[in-house]
């Protein structure tokens, strides 16, 4: 056993010496490899942290939201639908929700305007999210001018700014009274944006949804479980532009690694010949190549992941921020709660280290199977 460990430690010694001899080449390889893993791991951490947040926040979302569709588009729903729905067995409560979007021409940003349930906001007052306060440079007791549906100005006073912690759910929210909402958007009487339905027994949710869809063929019930699943798939690390770009990067890296491994220079070939002539066996040379590969790929993986963790949770994913911001004016600022996903990291390991290792097997063998007497005959 100790001779086995000795042998491998000796070989690792030489593998490190031999990597250090071609410093520039190997450090650039390590750098590119680390960079790829860094970006992928950052993405995984970022997305996983968001997914976790979404699950935590939305666990108390309405059980079901009933929308009305007209001509394939989201339409206002008559409030009396709600009365009929609440008579369905199993339905606990139906609350009409009033909300909409407001485009602020002065800033060029979109806000979400909402009417909270229990008269949280007095008429002529509003509660705003931190994002709104930031882009409007507004503080409590300031007056903000909005344009109503008929272009008449509407002056509302900031009653409260939601605390910083709410950023992830409420950055762009403007909460106002039903009366102000009415004068701003001129909704027809007896209509709401949609209906939030709560059901006593969560097992009956699908049954209730089916009944609603049968009774009101022009509505669409959206279940909380579906919202959660949507968030799962929204954040699922798939199909995204990033990943497509990254897969191209991984591919080109593997081609690069393959090229490096196959295109053994004449000098390297000679060295392996020398090693074999002085008593290294084929499997020793294979181990040498194996350890060289492990040193590169393991170091890159560990460094990449650690750097990504720092990037996402200490520097709030600064590199992605600009990519994510896109052209939206109002961008929520939040510090992500750290979360790591061992599963995704395992997958990342599989996707980045395994192909690299496989790519080096045959070239390593080709190099290692040189005749020991080759060095002598040259």
């Amino acid at each position, binding site marked *: 056993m100790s001779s086995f460990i000795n042998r491998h*430690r000796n070989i690792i*010694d030489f593998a*490190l*010496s031999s990597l250090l001899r071609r410093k520039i080449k190997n450090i650039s390889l390590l750098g590119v490899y680390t960079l790829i893993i860094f970006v992928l791991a950052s993405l995984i951490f970022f997305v996983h942290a968001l997914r976790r*947040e*979404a699950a*935590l*926040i*939305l*666990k*108390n*979302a*309405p059980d079901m939201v009933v*929308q009305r*569709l007209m001509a394939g*588009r*989201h339409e206002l729903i008559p409030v009396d639908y709600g009365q009929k729905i609440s008579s369905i067995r199993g339905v606990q409560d139906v609350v009409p929700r009033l909300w909409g*979007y407001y485009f602020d021409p002065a800033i060029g940003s*979109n*806000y*979400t305007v909402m009417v*909270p*349930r229990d008269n949280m906001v007095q008429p002529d007052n509003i509660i705003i*999210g931190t*994002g709104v306060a930031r882009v409007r440079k507004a503080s409590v007791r300031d007056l903000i001018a909005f344009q109503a549906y008929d272009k008449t100005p509407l002056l509302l006073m900031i009653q409260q700014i939601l605390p910083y*912690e*709410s950023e*992830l*759910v*409420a*950055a*762009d*929210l403007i909460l106002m009274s039903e009366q102000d909402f009415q004068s701003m958007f001129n909704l027809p009487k007896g209509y709401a944006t949609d209906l939030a339905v709560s059901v006593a027994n969560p097992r009956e949710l699908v049954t209730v949804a089916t009944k609603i869809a049968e009774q009101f063929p022009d509505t*669409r019930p*959206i*279940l909380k479980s*579906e*919202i959660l699943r*949507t968030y799962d798939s*929204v954040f699922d690390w798939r199909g*995204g*532009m*990033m990943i497509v770009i990254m897969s191209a990067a991984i591919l080109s890296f593997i081609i690069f690694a393959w090229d490096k491994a196959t295109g053994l220079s004449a000098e390297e070939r000679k060295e392996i010949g020398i090693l074999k002539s002085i008593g290294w066996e084929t499997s020793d040379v294979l181990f040498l190549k194996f350890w060289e590969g492990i040193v590169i790929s393991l*170091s890159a993986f560990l*460094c990449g*992941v*650690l750097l990504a*963790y720092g990037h996402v*949770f200490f520097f709030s994913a600064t590199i992605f921020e600009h990519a*994510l911001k*896109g*052209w*939206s*004016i109002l*961008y*929520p600022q939040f510090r992500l*709660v*750290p*979360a*790591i996903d061992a599963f995704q990291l395992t997958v990342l390991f599989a996707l980045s280290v395994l192909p690299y290792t496989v790519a080096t097997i045959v070239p390593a063998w080709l190099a290692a199977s040189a005749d020991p007497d080759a060095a002598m005959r040259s």
Partner: protein
Amino acid sequence: MFKVRKSTYYLVFLVSCLAMFVAMTLHVRYGQAEAKTGSEYRASLAEKLMITDLCLFTEARYTRHPSMADLDTPFQDHPVSLEHFPSGSFVSPPDFTARLHELIH
């Protein structure tokens, strides 16, 4: 004369990396515990206001409220929904809705 072997250096490097991994998981625990009040506040706010979506991208309806969007919103501006790059590439149009319809009808 004693000289440290290269493999020892590498071993030290690996061990310190692994130690940092452990530190990372500890930091995750600590961070989550620390952020607990914030998370709970967000959850209660979401419950009170009946919020169904996170505020991540505000530039379009289907990126602001992915779960509430129409079936074909992304196609109203551009057929491949890349108009809101890059968030449009993260937030794909909701696909559960169509399936639910099949399920119900």
